[in-house]
């Protein structure tokens, strides 16, 4: 069950970070001079999504390790 949970978490986080990457590259292409500001915003958003995914990873780990 923990493995399924980890898989689902990766699915969501991958989709989210992928969308951020898409948004960031599109914005940089449109406005290359704002690249550094877009990059900062991108990293913050990615870190927040990753945080949510890692909550799921920790819960999955607890599920796997707590079962023993």
């Amino acid at each position, binding site marked *: 069950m923990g493995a399924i949970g980890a898989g689902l978490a990766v699915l969501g986080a991958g989709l989210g970070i992928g969308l951020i990457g898409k948004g960031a590259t599109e914005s940089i292409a449109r406005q290359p001079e704002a690249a550094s500001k877009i990059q*900062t915003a991108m*990293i*913050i958003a990615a*870190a*927040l999504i*990753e*945080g949510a995914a*890692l*909550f799921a*990873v*920790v819960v999955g780990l607890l599920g796997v*390790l707590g079962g023993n």
Partner: protein
Amino acid sequence: MTHSNFLKINTFLITLFLLISAPSWAGGSAVEGGEKEGFNPSEFIGHHISDSHVWEIYHGFMVHLPIIIYSEEKGFDIFSSANFYNEHHELVPYKGYVMHHEHITLASGAGVFDISITKNVLFLLLNATLLIFLFSAVARGYTKNAGRAPKGIQAFFEPLIVFIRDDIAKENIGPKHERYLPFLLTVFFFIWFGNLLGLLPGAANLTGNIAVTLVLASITLIITLVSGRSTYWLHIVDPLGKSMPWGGKFLLYLILWPVEIIGIFTKPFSLMIRLFANITAGHILILSILSLAFIFESVLIGVVGATFATAMNMLELFVAILQAYVFTLLSAMYFGQAVEEHHH
């Protein structure tokens, strides 16, 4: 001149790595000969990422760390953790104390207050010493080269320090950022060095320990709460402001107040989980890939796995500084919200 220096350093590093890793290869073959009944990856990985009373640099070579415990029955007691092991490397009771899965209790089963120098504490102290030495050298550089261009180690750290001051602190906190710089710089370098130390072979998983990240996140929480100005608290107590009469607001606030109060704590909580989970997940990943060779007992998978693990290690080097950056940046943003003066 610099080129030949570079070559010299490279040769030195390669020799050092070969010297260090040679005994661990020997140790590895000893494991295969000794216990043939199968390799347990989850036990191996769990052993690596958890804290321990001994520091096992490589298989069979241990540094026994001191144990400092306090119990109401016996008072303070200090002795080496080597006393818990007999010559066959099995756990034995000592002086009425029993150790089971790194957890020390009295023989009667009563708990003790354990403040031992464990592997993580050792690396915490090592990290702190390293930071003190490096940054006092940097500070000495500023008095020595006052008014001149930075030199040596000072020149290496200056761009990072300036980056944290200008792009993290000033950008997110505003004019009062100087008060927070000591904390932000310390936390950045502490996490970065902790992450890098954790990546060394045989080292402790310092920043992948939830107690360490808990303390770091708690300090952020305390600083945020202490420096919170009236606007910060007004945002929590009265987030809707004058947009609605009190009668209507009050009903909404029955839901909003708990959310806002939980919100104070979820921010540092996510800081804690993010750092802990990122570093621990990285270690688990590298060790799992390396374990594949032993699970399938194949040289081919070993070669592919080692190559892939090296690539993951490179990624972890990047994650090490990225997580330090993210922690510092988010801390600075929380401080910025706390000290914000005007309303929008």
